[in-house]
Structures are given as C-alpha cells and as structure tokens.
C-alpha cells in the first residue's frame, strides 16, 4: 500500500473482517486444539478447558491487533483463516483419538 494514501473502503472492510472473523476463527482453533492437546497430555478436561478460557481472549486480543498492524492483508487472512481452520481440524482429529 502507498505509504501516505488512506486505505480504500474495501481494504478497511477487509481488515475489520479479518480482525474479527479471522481472529475469532484463530482463537477457536487455539482453544479447541489447546484443550485436546492438554487432555492428550493427561490433563483433566475441565482443567484444560479453564486454562484455555483464561488464555483465549488474550490470544484474540493479540491477533486482533496484529490484523491491523500487519502489512499484508493476504497474510493476515492466511494465518488467521487457515491457522484457525487447521487447528480446529487438528483438534477434531485428536479428539477422535482420545474418545
């Protein structure tokens, strides 16, 4: 993006969508994979759940800010969207192993 020009409306909407939807997807992925990962390591489910609920919004806050700080919007979508989907999928697979 040009260093001085204001971003286009479409770009701003894209950023906001990435920060909120992408951020939520990523947080969801971290939470589910975090819980299943801890359970796989032998931590009690309830315990793991509490830990991730405490961490979730700190993760969301960090990626939310990063979504605006990052230079490339494509990279933001890539990391948050694919990362969120990937971690959620991994959590689901891991759960299949645990049940």
């Amino acid at each position: 993006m040009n260093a001085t020009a204001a971003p286009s409306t479409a770009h701003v909407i894209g950023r906001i969508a990435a920060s909120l939807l992408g951020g939520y997807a990523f947080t969801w992925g971290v939470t589910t994979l975090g819980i299943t990962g801890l359970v796989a390591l032998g931590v009690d489910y309830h315990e793991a759940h509490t830990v991730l609920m405490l961490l979730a919004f700190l993760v969301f806050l960090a990626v939310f800010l990063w979504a605006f700080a990052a230079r490339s919007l494509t990279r933001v979508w890539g990391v948050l969207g694919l990362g969120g989907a990937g971690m959620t999928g991994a959590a689901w697979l891991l759960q299949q192993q645990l049940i």
Partner: protein
Amino acid sequence: MLSNFRLSMTWLHTWFGLVLGFVLVVVFFFGSLSVFDREFDRWAIPETRFEPQPMPSFDQVLLPILQRVEPDEVDYAANMPLLHDSAQGPMTPRLQLPADEFWAYTTHRDPVLAMGVGFRVPQPKDPLGHNHIHGDTTIDPRDGTMLREGQQKIGSEFFYPLHYSLHLEWKFIGFWIVALAALTMLAMLITGLVMHRKVFAELFTFRPGKNPRRSLLDLHNLTGVVALPFHFFFAFTGLVIFAAFYYLPVSDTLLRPLAQAHAVAEAAATGLPHERAGVAAPLASVDAMVVEAKRRWDARGMPGQVGFLQVHHVGDANSYVSIYRAGSDRVALVGQAVHFKGSTGEVLREEPAPTVPHGIEEFLTGLHLQHFEHWLLRWLYVFGGLLGCVCIATGFLFFVEKRKRQHAQQGVAGSRVVDALAVSTVTGMLIATAAILIANRVLPAELADKGWWERLAFWLAWLLAAAHAFWRSAPVAQARPSPAWREQCWAIAALCPLAVLLNWATTGDHLGKTLFSYWPVAGVDLALLATAGLAAWAARRLARRERATLATAPAAPTAHRTAEEAAHV
C-alpha cells in the same frame, strides 16, 4: 494497515474507539451501578427494605414454595419447542412439567431470597443437553411470602443485565456486542499506550487551564492510564465470565464428545450421579444436611453460612443435594461444597480445594462480580468504573474538538453527528436512569407488570434525550458547542432530586431517617443528589463556555487555525 505500526494503531484506536465507545460507556456506567445492584433493588421495592437474612429452613420454608413454583410462560413459549422432540408425541403442557432441579442463592447483601426450579422436558430432542424450562421466584425469608409478581428489581434485574446483554436477547446479540466492546476496550488500552509512549508522564499531566482540546486529551490519557489495570481487568474478566457459555462454547459443539465423556467419568469418580435413575425416591431432610455442611466448614476452620443450595434430579433415586458456603469472606463467589445423597442425607463428597487454574478463574471472576464483603473496595469499583466513563466520554469530545473546525469549513456533518451521539449516550443514559427510578416511585405497586412500564419509561426517556441531542446539534456544524449538553445537564439536575423527593413522599424514607437506619436507600439517595449537584455545576460551566465562544470565536475558522488542525489529524 497503514504505513507504520503507530499509524495503524492510531487508526484502530480512533475508529473502533469511536464506534464501540458508545457501547462501552453504557457498559461501564451500568456496570458501576451494578456494584450496588442490591441497594437499587431495595430502593425500588420498598417492602424489601430490611436487613439481610441467612438462608431459612429448606424443609419448612423453601420446599413448600419450590413445589408451588410454575415454569415461566415466556421461557416455556421460547424454549419448549426447541428442546422437545415432537417425534415422540405432543409437548408436555407447561403446568405438567416435572421439577428436576431446585436452587436458592443469597449473599450478605440480600434481605430477600432468590430461588427457582429447573423443570425437566420429558421428551427431549437431545437427551444429553440441558433440558430445563425455568421458573424463578423471590421470597421474604422471614415469613416465606412471595414478592408480588411483576415488580422489578431495578438493580439486579435491569441495570445489571443491561451492562452485559444490553437487554438485546435475540440470538444473544447483546452479549456479542458487549463482547466486541470489551475486546475493543482491551485493544484501546494497548493502542492508547502505543500512541502516546510517554506513559509515565501521562500520570501527572492535566492542564485544565490550557485550551479545551489539550485539557480533554490530558483527562482522556490520565483516566485511561491511571486506571489502566482496572479497565483491563474488568473488560478481560467480563469476557472470561461468559466465555464458556456464549463466546467459545466448545464443550457444547466441537468438543462435545470429549466433554460428555469427561462428565460421565467425573460422575463416576465423584459419586455424584450425572443422570436420573428413573426410580422415584423421597427427599431426606435438607436442614440436617445443612447442619452437617456447617459442621464440616467449622471443622476446616472456616465457619460460614449457606450461599447456594441446589437439589439435583429432584424426586429421583439419584437425587443429590449440593450445599455451597457463601463467599462473603473470600473472593470466590461460593465454594467448599458438600454433596449429600438426596434420599438418605449421607455425604457423597466434600469438594477439595480448587486446583490452580480453577483457583485463578474463581479469583478473577469473583473479583469482577464482587459478592464478598468489602465496602471500601465496592466504592472503589464505582469510582473506577466512572473513571472509565470519563475516559470514554472525553475520547468522544476530543474526537469532536479535533475535527469540528475542519468539518465546519468543509460542510461535513461528522462532528455534529458524533457530538449528538455523545450527548445521547452520556447525558442521555443518566436521564434514562433517573426516569426509571421516577417511574418506579410514580407507578402503583399493584400495577400488573409494573417492571414493563418502568422499562418503557427508561427507553422512552433515552430516546427523547437522543432526539433532543440531534435537534439541538446545529451549532456544532459551525464549530460551536451544542447547547444540548447544558440542557440535558439541567434535566439531570432536576430529575435526580425529584426521584429522591418521590422516594420520601411514597415511602416516608427521607435521608434524615435512612442515614441513621438504612444505608442501602440512603446511599442511592445521596448518589442521586451528588449527580444532580455535579450536573448543575457542569451546566453552569457549559453556559459560561458557550457565552465565551459566542463572544470571541468567529463562526468560520481562520485559514491559520485550519492548517494547524489539519496537521494534527
């Protein structure tokens, strides 16, 4: 997003802060009022103005009442069709739903006792789900009489839920808006630090004599930085409190198989049945269980009262009773549960001390909800919350001050709209608050659904204030202050004392009496009078400012000023 990190963070701060700020200031204000929710309840329902009571006898007082409680009509209409499996037959009529769970909850500030029943949906779509239709009631624990239907606890049933749900129930949309606002608050605190950098200096910088824009920014930074840990804590813990239920319901969705397997394993390990047995059984004396629970708390060196009592699987052989100690003397809401077998009264399990993660979670949420006894901290919460309101409101004002001359010259309506919205939110919500209290004292107690009329008064007053704010906003388009601020301050200065007078006239409880006998009501009255005094002072200051602007400033800004403004945008 922009060319450098700080510019991106500034953009985020300005625009998210502006849009979500209107929600945030409402959340902070009604959250501050909720610190004294029980006291507003006493003010609003005069027959409950007596001292807090311990939990009365379950066998003699609570049980007969719980057996008379009916499933709530609204809850039934909304949720029965969702929970019931129509393939198994027609819906069970509302009054034939069997009770599955009894509960009662009290704190050291509650004269009245809130209690309720969870009714079982006999043919659920999802047998593993939480298949309950609820029915709640509030009683006078001294004699077991139920509070009159339709009366609203303005503090705990209106202000308190307003601060986390905005009373927008549809699809929990209000919860999500508040969550977004809370996330924004966290982001604003971080981006605010990034923008200013000289954080330590902000702690000591307030130049009220400088030009208004500079003073506003000082006040915005000061209130933001001084109370930063406070603001961060409340926004963050607010999110944590609802995370598992609304925001990240992983246990009910993706991880449900894992969560269910855990629940079943836990039931087996603790001996607390997860399911009903399907065999009827009577309930042994719960009073005897309470005696045993108290004996065990004594033995652990922490004598206490019952805070929360719950009977699970009512009427079933698998029924068990959980008795929690009131957390008046510790941060966690309730704790040290002892569980008893419902049919025999034998102890099934005494809950061990919480593990580290649970301890942290209980501490954080307990510190937010503050049901423990600490009056100094309670007042500090109010002032901290109001500091948050000042921080957000000065943010709006700074936004307007920074742009209004430029907007005036370009003929852009931005500043005017933002200023009108700020008036609507800031003074408007105070007017609405005074209006609901006045409506509460004017409407007769016998009025059916009195709470509905009170809420109507609240929203109408707020709407009226917003209409007034927009109607009077024209001067902002010429870079002059809106008279709506001053006029609404006068409205507050008139309405708040009116509420105090009406309380006196309708109940006989004037300050001369309540100051020495009943602080919950005296406190609300004093706060109303203080608000009125502050509003009158602000109105006079605003009048002086308006006169000064009219006398000195030309309607259109000079070219020099505009260039200076543009350099700051």
